[in-house]
């Protein structure tokens, strides 16, 4: 079954497991690895494979569902939604704008100027590559 072959979870990470799963599946959907109409593994099957509780996989799927990435089909499981690439790009752009606005707000409180913020941005960008 697609998707769960390369899902990796870290038990001792500070990030909740359901978030780790949701993030990885989201990436697979957005990069096209999981295509529209593809079924996600059953929540209990996935829980079995990853050795975690059923409620955790369920929560991960519910989060994906609330973001419009997948839809639950009664009795049949979760399926990947067709992703409107342009709308997604807009959505992500909005998230970037919000994050930057938050950063600017905090910068002003801390008394940082635009140049310092730009420097920090470049440093972080490089670190993330």
């Amino acid at each position, binding site marked *: 079954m697609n998707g769960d072959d390369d899902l990796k979870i870290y038990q001792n990470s500070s990030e909740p497991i359901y978030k780790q799963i949701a993030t990885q599946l989201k990436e697979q959907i957005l990069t096209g690895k999981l295509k529209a109409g593809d079924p996600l593994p059953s929540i209990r*099957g996935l829980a079995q494979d990853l050795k975690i509780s059923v409620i955790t996989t369920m929560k991960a799927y519910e989060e994906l569902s609330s973001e419009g990435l997948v839809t639950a089909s009664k009795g049949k499981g979760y399926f990947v939604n067709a992703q409107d690439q342009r709308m997604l790009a807009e959505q992500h752009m909005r998230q970037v704008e919000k994050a930057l606005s938050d950063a600017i707000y905090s910068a002003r409180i801390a008394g940082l100027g635009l140049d310092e913020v730009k420097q920090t941005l470049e440093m972080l960008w490089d670190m993330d590559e």
Partner: protein
Amino acid sequence: MKNAIEIKGIKKKYKDFTLGEIHAEIPCGFATALIGANGAGKTTLIDVLCGVTGKTSGEAVYFGELTEIDSDTLRNKIGYCSSANFFPMDWTLKIIANSMELGFDNFDRTKFAELCRRFKLDEPTAKKQKKLIKLSDGNKMRTYLAAVLARDTELLVLDEPGSSLDPLARDLLCDLFREYLSERDGERSILFSTHNIADMENATDYAIFMANGQVIEQGFVEDLKEKYILVHGDSENADKAKPFMLSCTVNKTSFEGIAFAENADMLRAFDTATEVPTLQQLSVGILRKAEEDGE
């Protein structure tokens, strides 16, 4: 969401202990852990739910419609197993298989033999049969599990299944839980009791906490992990933080405890760090509070 069991006000009065009234749900399709200290009433509740013990008052609704535990339909659906002395000690695998077949309609001998092999027990059809009394506690428990899992049930009710198993076996037990739930996707449920949830967290979906014969908290694990937070700080701030916490342990240099997530901001003012608690940490916090309240 459907419930495998809906517990409506069940009460059981003994001479020196009263269970109840209990109001709780065992959600369908998930593994529910009944967590509490020894003497909290977990075994009594399980006994009442499975028909081992009669109740004083109250009702339990099974699978949304059945209410009488003394009925073969329901008894066939429920796979009950205790942790010690489940079968007479002079019984062998052969006798166990025979009695299980007589006692229930859905016992599968082939599956039983398979499970015995998988759990590294003897063959139920071997010529030389070993009596249960000669087995280690761990192997006794494996035998009981093989017997109950060889039945096609809809609800597994296990009373302290992990208590006589080593950590590796407990890990295997978690795998068995997931396997059981996965086989009839969504239609099967598990209820198990434990006084130590530590290594069974990863197979627990719903938790019910008990103390002094009462249910003190219940909920889906993921929801509980959002409702509560784990707080650490330096011991000099312990007294300031305590009023906002459920309970905490203080040692020479630091303190740690559980608090409601809504108090997170308040607590951060006392130079503390907060994080998502594990079910084990939650249990300690919630049960400790119950103990302190009871005094």
